[in-house]
C-alpha cells in the first residue's frame, strides 16, 4: 500500500476565502475540494473551496448557528444550536429528515468510521447516537453533570469515535472526558483535566474553558483532549493553548503540550493515521494551527491562522486541511512524499 509521508513543515495556505459570517463547522465530500460549511446565519453552504471564484449554495433549515456537519455516502447531517439534526441529500441539497435531537445547543457531531452512526453532544449534557441511514436513536449516554461545581450550567463540548468504531469519547466544560462503549453505552474510563476548566472565584466570579476537542489515536490506545491552561483573564481567553494525551485505559498521562506560543482554545484535534503527528487548531482573537511530534514530544510546526479556527477537516491523503472560523475558510496544503508502507 502506498501511504504519503506528509511533512507539516511544508504547511502553507493555499486558499483563503473571506466571508461576513462566522463559520462553525465543515465537512468535505470524499477526497474532493467540495465542502459544506455551517454558518452563524443558520445556513449551510456548499462550495468548491479551490474554485477560482467559489459560488456558495445555501441550504436553509436550521434556526441557529450550525455547529456540526458530517457526511457519509449521499447523506450530509447537520447539527445546530437549535437542538435539531437535519439529514440532507448531498447531491440535491434537499432535506431528508429533521430530528429534534436535544433540548439545548448541539455543540459537535462525530461520525463513526463506517459511516453508520452519528453522535451528537449538547448542553443538555447527553450524548445521543443515531443511525445515519434512518435517523433512529440508537443510544443515550448520560453521565456528565448538568451543573458545574459552582452551580452554573455545564456544557458538553466534544465527542469523537475511535478508529474501530467501538468507543466514543465525550468531553465537558469542567474538564471531564468519558470513554464509552458504543454497543452498550458503558462507561469504560473517565479522564480528568481540571486545569482546562477555569473558575475565577475572586476577580470575576464566573467560569470559562472546558475540554473543547477530543480524539483517539489510530490504534485507539491514546486519547487526546484539548482546551487551554488556566486562564488568567477570563475576559479575553488569556491562556496558552493546551493538549494532554492519555493512555485512557490506565489513565496515565503520556503527553502534555503546554506553554507554547499561541493562546486560546484548542478547538480541533486530528491524529495522523500512523501517529506521525497530532494536529491541533483553535485560537482566541487570533487563530493557530500546530503539529506535535508524538515520539519526540515536541512541536513540529506551528503557525498563526488568519482566524480563530472552529472546525477543520483533513482529506484522505492527510495533506490538505479545510479549516473554518471567524469570517474565513482557509485551505492549507502540505507537501508529501509517496512511500511504500
Amino acid at each position, binding site marked *: 500500500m502506498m501511504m504519503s509521508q506528509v511533512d507539516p513543515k511544508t504547511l502553507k495556505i493555499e486558499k483563503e476565502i473571506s466571508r461576513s459570517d462566522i463559520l462553525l463547522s465543515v465537512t468535505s465530500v470524499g477526497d474532493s475540494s467540495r465542502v459544506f460549511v455551517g454558518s452563524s*446565519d443558520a445556513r449551510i453552504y456548499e462550495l468548491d473551496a479551490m474554485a477560482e471564484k467559489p459560488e456558495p449554495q445555501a441550504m436553509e433549515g436550521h434556526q441557529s448557528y450550525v455547529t456540526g456537519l458530517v457526511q457519509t455516502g449521499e447523506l450530509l447531517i447537520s447539527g445546530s444550536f437549535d437542538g435539531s439534526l437535519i439529514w440532507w441529500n448531498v447531491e440535491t441539497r434537499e432535506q431528508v429528515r429533521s430530528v429534534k435531537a436535544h433540548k439545548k445547543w448541539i455543540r459537535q457531531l462525530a461520525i463513526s468510521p463506517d459511516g453508520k452512526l452519528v453522535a451528537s453532544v449538547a*448542553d443538555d449534557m447527553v450524548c445521543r447516537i443515531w443511525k445515519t441511514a434512518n435517523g433512529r436513536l440508537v443510544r443515550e449516554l448520560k453521565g456528565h453533570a448538568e451543573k458545574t461545581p459552582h452551580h452554573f450550567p455545564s456544557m458538553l463540548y466534544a465527542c469523537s469515535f475511535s478508529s474501530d468504531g467501538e468507543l466514543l469519547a465525550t468531553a465537558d466544560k469542567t474538564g471531564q472526558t468519558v470513554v464509552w462503549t458504543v454497543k452498550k453505552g458503558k462507561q469504560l474510563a473517565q479522564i480528568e483535566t481540571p486545569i482546562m476548566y477555569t473558575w475565577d472565584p475572586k476577580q470575576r466570579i464566573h467560569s470559562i474553558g472546558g475540554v473543547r476537542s477530543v480524539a483517539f489515536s489510530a490504534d485507539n490506545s491514546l486519547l487526546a483532549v484539548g482546551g487551554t491552561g488556566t486562564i488568567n483573564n477570563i475576559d479575553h481567553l488569556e491562556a496558552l493553548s493546551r493538549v494532554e494525551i492519555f493512555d485512557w485505559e490506565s489513565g496515565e498521562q503520556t503527553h502534555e503540550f503546554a506553554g507554547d506560543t499561541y493562546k486560546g482554545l484548542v478547538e480541533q484535534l486530528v491524529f495522523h493515521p500512523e501517529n506521525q503527528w497530532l494536529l491541533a487548531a483553535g485560537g*482566541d482573537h487570533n487563530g493557530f494551527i500546530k503539529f506535535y511530534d508524538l515520539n519526540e514530544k515536541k512541536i513540529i510546526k506551528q503557525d498563526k491562522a488568519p482566524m480563530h479556527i472552529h472546525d477543520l477537516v483533513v482529506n484522505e491523503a492527510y495533506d490538505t486541511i479545510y479549516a473554518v472560523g471567524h469570517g474565513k475558510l482557509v485551505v492549507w496544503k502540505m507537501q508529501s512524499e509517496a512511500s511504500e508502507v
Partner: protein
Amino acid sequence: MVKPRRTSFCGSPEHDINRRRFLGGATALAGISGGLHALRHPVLADELKKQQKRVILLWLAGGASQLETWDPKPGRPTGGPFRSIQTSTAGLQISELMPKMASRLQDTAIIRSLNTRIGDHGGGSILMHLGRRDEPNLSYPDLGSVMARELGQADSTVPDYVTFYTATEGRGNAVGRPGFLGARYAPMFLTTSNKPEDIERIANLSEIDHKQRGDLRQLLSDRFTRGRETSRALDSHNVAYRRVRGLMASDTLFDVEQEPQKMRDRYGPTLFGQQCLIARRLAEAGTPFVKVSRAWWDSHGQNFETHLELVTELDHVMSTLLDDLKERGLLESTLVITMAEFGRTPKINGSLGRDHFANAWSASLSGCGVQGGSVYGKTDEDGQTVADGEIGAARMFATIYKALGIDPHKDYYVGARPVPLTDPGTTVVDELLA
C-alpha cells in the same frame, strides 16, 4: 453645607399627611426601641411597607450584553445564537436566557434606548452612578447616597446604604460616594464578606455590660441636659450612639441563616443569590438603598458562554427577588433596577466576544412607580444605534427619582450654591412610570 430638606413624597396631600403621621410614629418608636424592632409592631410594619420607598440596584458590573438580555436581535448578523421568547406582555420579546423574567414582566419596564456615549469602565461607571458627568470642583453624590438622603429616616438604626461588591475586578469603578452630602450618607461597602465587619460587640463585653454602659451614658447625658437649653451637639451625639447600637443590632440582617432553608433554596446557592436575599432582608427592615454588584460581565471573549452562565443566574435570582418582594407586599414600594456602565457591541469579534458599547444599550426598572410590562425606546434592526426614544443617564436618573416620589428638579445647597438633583432641562420619561 447641605440645606436639610426632605421632600421624598409624590406631592399628593393625602400622601403628605400619611407620611407625616408615619414619620412621627416611627421616630417616636425608634426613640424607644429602634427601627428594627419597629417591624415587630404590626401596624407600623404595615405603614413601613406602604410608605417607605426602597431601591435595590442590581449592578451588572463590566457591562452585560443587551442582546443577550433585554434587546435580542435573533436572526441578524449581530444577534448571536440565542433566540428571543415571548414575554407576559403581548408583542414584547426578550432573550431566551430569561424565561423566568419573561413570564413575570408585568412589574418590569425595559429601557432599550440608552445612549450614554462613554465606553470605558471607569467613566461609564461614574456616569451611571452619578447620573451625570463628574466635575472636578464639585463632588456629586452617587445614586445610593441620594437615596439614603431622600428615603432614609433621620434616626434610622438600620444602614441607609449598603453595597455588595465581592469580585475584585472593577470594584474600584463601583462608585459609592456621598460627595457633598457628607459622610452620613456614605455606603456600608461589603467586599470580602456578606456581613459587615467590626460591628459585632467585642468578645469580652457581654450584652448586659454593653447595654448597661449605654444606659449609664444615657443617664449622664440626661442629667447633663436637665435644666439646660437643648444642646444640638449632644442631640447629635445621642442619635449617633443610638444609630451605632442599631447598626450593631442589624448584624443579623446580613445573616442568610436567619432565613428558612426553603427561602435560601429559592434564591439559590450562588453568591449573587445570597446577596440578593440579604438585600431583600435589608429592604424589608427599612434600608432604603442596597446595591448588589454582580461582576464580571466583560465578555471580550466567549461572550455567549459567559452570558449563558451569568444571564441564567440573573434570570433566576432577579425573578426570585421580585416574587419575594411581591409576596411580602414590598414590591410596590421597592424599585429594583438592573443596569451597568454600558452594554456590549452588536458586532461579534473574532473570539466570539462582544466589546464595550455605550451607544445603544438596555436597563430595566421593576416595581415601585413603574409602568410594568412596558418597553421604552428602540434600537435599529442590528442594535447598532438608537432608533427611537434615545435617553442618557440623566433622564434615566430623573425617571428613577420620580418613580420614588422624589422631585428630580429639587435643589441641594452646597454653601449658597444650589445644585439641582439632575442637570437643568432633564426631563422624566413618563412613559416608564405608572
